[in-house]
């Protein structure tokens, strides 16, 4: 490839054709533009008139230039120009492309990919076989033609971890196993990813054994986000970067679900790396409610798994239901068994109060029963089911529990232990001894290592019955070894019993800070500290959502679970994807960067050349030149026409305007669609667009005719009828939908059905007209009726009957017994009377559904009978002679009755009571 001023040519010899341009210049000059033919009878007067000027004899110079430019563009375009052609590596050896492919490069992965593509293109031009080696996912080297590799390039994606020692040694193995020698180009993210230098050195040495090594390094700053911590009421977020460069500012976002379930940015805070610093810290103080919603923190401008800090339980807000036996008692607040719980939990949990029966369906995370001895059997069963599904039941003892016979003889499902009768009191006026203090929490207890304040004393408690299971179930005890807190697992949930009251009556525990800490440890309220690896020993954590290299969360699918300690300590890798893990009720976030990690810049041996990414990747310009040539040729056409007088800009503008105008006129809907607000402004009848133009036109004309009749005869003054597209239009604006059936009617979509059913349920009426009662009885098999059956299958249509003689439809405005349309005797079906509804004596018609039937089905083709043209004359003949006119009149009366029925509901049936009402009023 020869390179001229940064532009290389694939086939430079084609440029020789440019030499032909001057010849073409002379050739083109000799050919004047073709004349325009003009009919002109007065040509007799022109005969013999010569031209005075002759310069247009030849093509104008600018037109020539235009043509030559077009030609030159074609030649240049075909010569295959390439902007910034990659510097050729002249070695004929195969090429190995090593890619870090870690999260650190994800933020600028598109650049890396462009770089890879241009390298592959270059290799393809040089016919060098290429192998790709991704260090985060090392595979044996396969040298293949570069264009084959280019197709595989999409599979190379950054992983949410960094190459580990094992991955590097695997890569080293693959390199040493390769059969031939090759040159290496290492595309690095700029991080030194392995702590022990050994593996890295070995890998580089293996590469150098095979051939030259060159490094292309991404020059962008690599920023990582450390897991969020919760300190002193604020979320502390730390970011780290590899190079202590100049000061740089970043934006940090807290993302989570809003109350509507949409993920959005809940908070945003700016922070800055000071010049020369590698870490930056910022604090985010949020209300607990908002904090609990946060699912992750992310750097706004960095698209990388390292720039994501997932949050877990520690920021979540739990729902706690408080239930006390004394609910509703007008006791003193400080004596209420729930007062201290409320105080302790309110800052960090959502509290629900009420009766168990009401609260259980709300599925709270925790239910607290304060001094509740007995539950109704049904509630007990429901509660057990809730616990089995993962609920936490927290019980407190109290006088009622102590006095009851609950869990005396046998272990109850809702009590962790059996209780001895009566309980005990210590240190009171009537007893020996001092109030007892708490013993330090044993290892294995959830309260392990909580500090016990000295002032916490216990004066009374219920006492557990000794039992083989008891020792396992005690998680806190008094200094004398009496169990104070016991726990039992039930299904996925657990039951915890505090053997003291939830108020300060029996002990001072609820008054101390320890009480709050214990509730946190029990996951009643959200905790603030990350668990230790040892704490998770023996647990298996199931991934729920995992991060990919770009920091996108995706469903973990069937990935295997991870042991608890590994989740905390092991490095992220294919066996441990960063993401959100769950074990029982607890969830834990595993981030790419663990707490306290730092980023190390890559250090390369002195003699390996390190280059930055090419600023501008190579770009083939052939297409650009060719399209330029096309544009120039189009201009040439216009210019040639202009020169020959066949076309003038003014005429063209006129023509264009005409075309545009014609386009506008031909457009089926030139007027902007009526907005819902306009439609809602006035009452109007509506018909369903069937897609059959003539049926739609008839329906429109029919409803127009009916609207006119209504306007002349009644106080209903409808606006122009509206054609409803079931898929798009809002139905709620129309009291009645006239739906003419055709056999070719398309089925409405699922959404349309949903809207139709809502419309029917909310008092709308659909008037189906199969328009075929001259051919068949409605409901029997005519094509339109069959279609109606198919369409109506998914509609909520009640049982139907033929209009009974006492139906309100027969007397809503006119007294009618027949409902003719264009056809005479088709039956009309309306909603059937409910079987239990009885005819009330003295009431001429029945009370149904506010008197309005949701559907009317018939086949008399009413729209055709109502239809009028623009001048108000009927469009279709009805019947014969005066009898026909009478029939049309009856059809109109039916229409009036129908609309009246829809608009007034059971008002008409109520009218029969008017004499009775007046009577009662004493008039």
């Amino acid at each position, binding site marked *: 490839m020869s390179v001229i001023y940064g532009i290389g040519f694939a086939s430079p010899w084609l440029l020789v054709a440019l030499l032909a341009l001057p010849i073409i210049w002379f050739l083109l000059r000799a050919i004047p533009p073709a004349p325009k033919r003009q009919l002109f009878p007065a040509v007799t007067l022109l005969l013999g008139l010569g031209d005075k000027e002759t310069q247009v004899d030849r093509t104008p110079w600018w037109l020539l230039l235009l043509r030559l430019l077009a030609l030159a563009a074609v030649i240049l375009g075909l010569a295959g120009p390439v902007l910034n052609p990659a510097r050729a590596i002249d070695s004929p050896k195969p090429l190995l492309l090593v890619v870090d492919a870690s999260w650190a490069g994800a933020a600028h992965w598109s650049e890396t990919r462009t770089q890879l593509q241009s390298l592959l293109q270059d290799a393809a031009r040089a016919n060098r076989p290429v192998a790709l080696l991704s260090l985060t996912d090392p595979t044996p080297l396969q040298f293949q033609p570069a264009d084959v590799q280019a197709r595989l390039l999409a599979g190379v994606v950054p992983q949410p971890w960094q190459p580990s020692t094992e991955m590097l040694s695997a890569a080293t193995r693959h390199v040493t196993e390769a059969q031939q020698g090759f040159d290496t180009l290492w595309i690095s993210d700029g991080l030194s990813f392995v702590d022990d230098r050994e593996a890295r050195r070995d890998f580089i040495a293996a590469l150098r054994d095979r051939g030259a090594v060159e490094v292309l390094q991404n020059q962008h700053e690599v920023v990582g986000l450390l897991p969020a911590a919760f300190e002193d009421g604020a979320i502390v977020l730390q970011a780290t970067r590899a190079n202590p460069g100049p000061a740089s500012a970043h934006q940090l976002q807290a993302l989570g679900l809003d109350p509507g379930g949409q993920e959005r940015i809940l908070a945003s805070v700016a922070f800055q790396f000071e010049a020369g610093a590698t870490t930056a810290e910022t604090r985010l103080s949020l209300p607990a409610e908002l904090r609990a919603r946060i699912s992750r923190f992310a750097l706004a401008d960095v698209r990388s798994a390292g720039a994501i800090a997932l949050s877990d339980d520690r920021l979540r807000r739990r729902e706690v239901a408080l239930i006390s036996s004394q609910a509703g008692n007008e006791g003193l607040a400080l004596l209420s068994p729930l007062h201290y719980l409320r105080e302790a939990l309110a800052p960090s949990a959502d509290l629900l109060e009420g009766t168990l029966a009401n609260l259980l369906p709300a599925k709270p995370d925790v239910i607290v029963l304060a001094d509740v001895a007995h539950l109704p059997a049904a509630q007990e069963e429901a509660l057990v089911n809730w616990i089995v599904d993962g609920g936490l039941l927290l019980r407190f003892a109290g006088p009622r529990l102590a006095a009851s016979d609950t869990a005396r003889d046998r272990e109850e499902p809702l009590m962790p232990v059996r209780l001895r009768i009566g309980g005990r009191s210590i240190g009171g006026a009537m007893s020996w001894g001092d109030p007892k203090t708490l013993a330090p929490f044993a290892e294995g207890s959830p309260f392990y290592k909580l500090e016990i304040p000295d002032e916490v004393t216990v004066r009374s408690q219920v006492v557990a019955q000794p039992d083989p299971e008891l020792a396992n179930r005690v998680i806190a005890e008094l200094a004398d070894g009496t169990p104070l807190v016991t726990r039992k697992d039930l299904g996925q949930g657990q039951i915890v019993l505090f053997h003291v009251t939830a108020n300060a009556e029996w002990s001072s525990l609820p008054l101390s800070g320890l009480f709050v800490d214990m509730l946190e440890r029990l996951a009643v309220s959200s905790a603030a500290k990350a668990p230790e690896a040892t704490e998770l020993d023996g647990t298996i954590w199931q991934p729920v959502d995992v991060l990919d290299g770009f920091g996108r969360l995706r469903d973990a699918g069937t990935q295997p679970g991870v042991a608890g300690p590994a989740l905390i300590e092991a490095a992220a890798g294919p066996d441990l994807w960063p993401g959100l893990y769950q074990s029982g009720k607890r969830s834990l976030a595993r981030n790419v960067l663990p707490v306290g990690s730092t980023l190390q810049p890559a250090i390369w041996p002195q003699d390996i050349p390190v280059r930055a990414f090419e600023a501008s990747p190579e770009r083939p310009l052939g297409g650009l030149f060719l399209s330029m040539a096309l544009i120039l040729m189009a201009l040439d056409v216009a210019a040639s026409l202009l020169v*020959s007088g066949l076309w003038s800009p003014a005429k063209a503008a006129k023509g264009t305007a005409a075309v545009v105008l014609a386009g506008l006129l031909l457009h089926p809907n030139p007027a902007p669609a009526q907005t819902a607000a306009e439609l809602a402004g006035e009452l109007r009848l509506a018909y369903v667009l069937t897609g059959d133009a003539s049926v739609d036109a008839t329906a429109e004309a029919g409803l127009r005719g009916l609207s006119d009749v209504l306007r002349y005869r009644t106080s209903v003054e409808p606006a122009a009828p509206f054609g409803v597209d079931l898929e798009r239009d809002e139905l709620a604006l129309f009291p009645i939908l006239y739906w003419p059936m055709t056999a070719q009617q398309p089925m409405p979509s699922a959404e349309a059905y949903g809207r139709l059913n809502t419309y029917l349920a909310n008092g709308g009426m659909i008037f189906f007209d199969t328009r075929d009662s001259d051919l068949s009885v409605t409901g029997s098999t005519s094509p339109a009726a069959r279609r109606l059956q198919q369409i109506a299958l998914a509609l909520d249509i009640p049982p139907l009957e033929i209009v009974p003689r006492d139906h309100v439809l027969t007397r809503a405005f006119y007294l009618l017994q027949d409902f003719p349309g264009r056809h005479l005797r088709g039956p009309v079906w309306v909603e059937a009377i409910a079987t239990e509804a009885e005819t009330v004596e003295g009431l001429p018609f029945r009370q149904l559904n506010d008197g309005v039937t949701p559907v009317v089905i018939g086949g008399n083709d009413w729209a055709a009978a109502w239809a009028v043209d623009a001048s108000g004359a009927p469009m279709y003949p009805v019947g014969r002679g005066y009898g026909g006119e009478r029939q049309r009149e009856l059809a109109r009366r039916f229409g009036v009755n129908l609309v009246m029925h829809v608009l007034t509901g059971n008002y008409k049936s109520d009218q029969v009571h008017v004499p009775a009402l007046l009577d009662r009023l004493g008039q």
Partner: protein
Amino acid sequence: MSPDTPPRAASREAALRGPGGQLRLRAEEAASPLPPLLVQAEQLAGAVLLGDHGRRRSGMGDDFWQYRPVQPGDSRRMIDHRRSARGDQQFVREREWQIAQTVHFWTDRGASMRFASSDHLPTKADRARLLALATAILMVRGGERVGLTGGLLPPRRGNIQILRMAESWTKDDDTPYAPPEHRALIPHARALCISDFLGPMQELETALAKSADRGVRGVLLQVLDPSEEAFPFAGRTRFESVTGELAHETLKARGLRDRYLDRLAERRDALDHLCRETGWQLGLHHTEQSAQAGLLWLHGALGRRAGHAT
């Protein structure tokens, strides 16, 4: 055919339905607002056909002129008994000598007339026929005899003549520039020639000279398309006559404009000169103008007394 015989309704409808009927319909529409035109008799002597024109002398006519005593040789039937009964003398009732004027029509049916520069304009031929026929209708209403030059349609009275004229004008001629027809002109009649007069002048001169020799006076109406008057052309153009026989190619049409307009003016001067020599009148009509304007002018020109014209 008797002048009072109305055309039968059936034939009238048939005529209206044909191509000539359309033309006639439009012509009648154009003619209806105008008062009947009575062509001034140029010469009292001459043809002796009865008409509505009083010759201010006793003769054969419908209108009363005078009573005169019976002279020997008068037949007894001529005695007006109502007048004679008043006295002893017998009187003869004399009627005014009435005569009809004859108008010959010629419209150019050559190909050059079938031209309109735009879809919105009528062709010159259309306009020429319309004007001619409108004028003919006016003439017939005034009791004149109308006909075509040449022997094809001798002058006659009556509406049927209008139909015949309209019919003959629906036929086109393929001659590029048709020369005026001057044969079979009735001496001392009047003539109306409508054309664009873009053809050779020679034949026109001959025709006018011959008619002047026979004492025929008349009107030349030049009908032109607006583009022939304005010459709105530019660029390299090949101008062709309607039949394509004549062509002129120019590289710069705009440069020709002034010289073309000069030539057009020259042609008009020549026509004017010719008319003045032969006692004819020259009119100019553009197809973009309303036909009414042209008809008004023709009405005036043909109605003018011969004394004014010469």
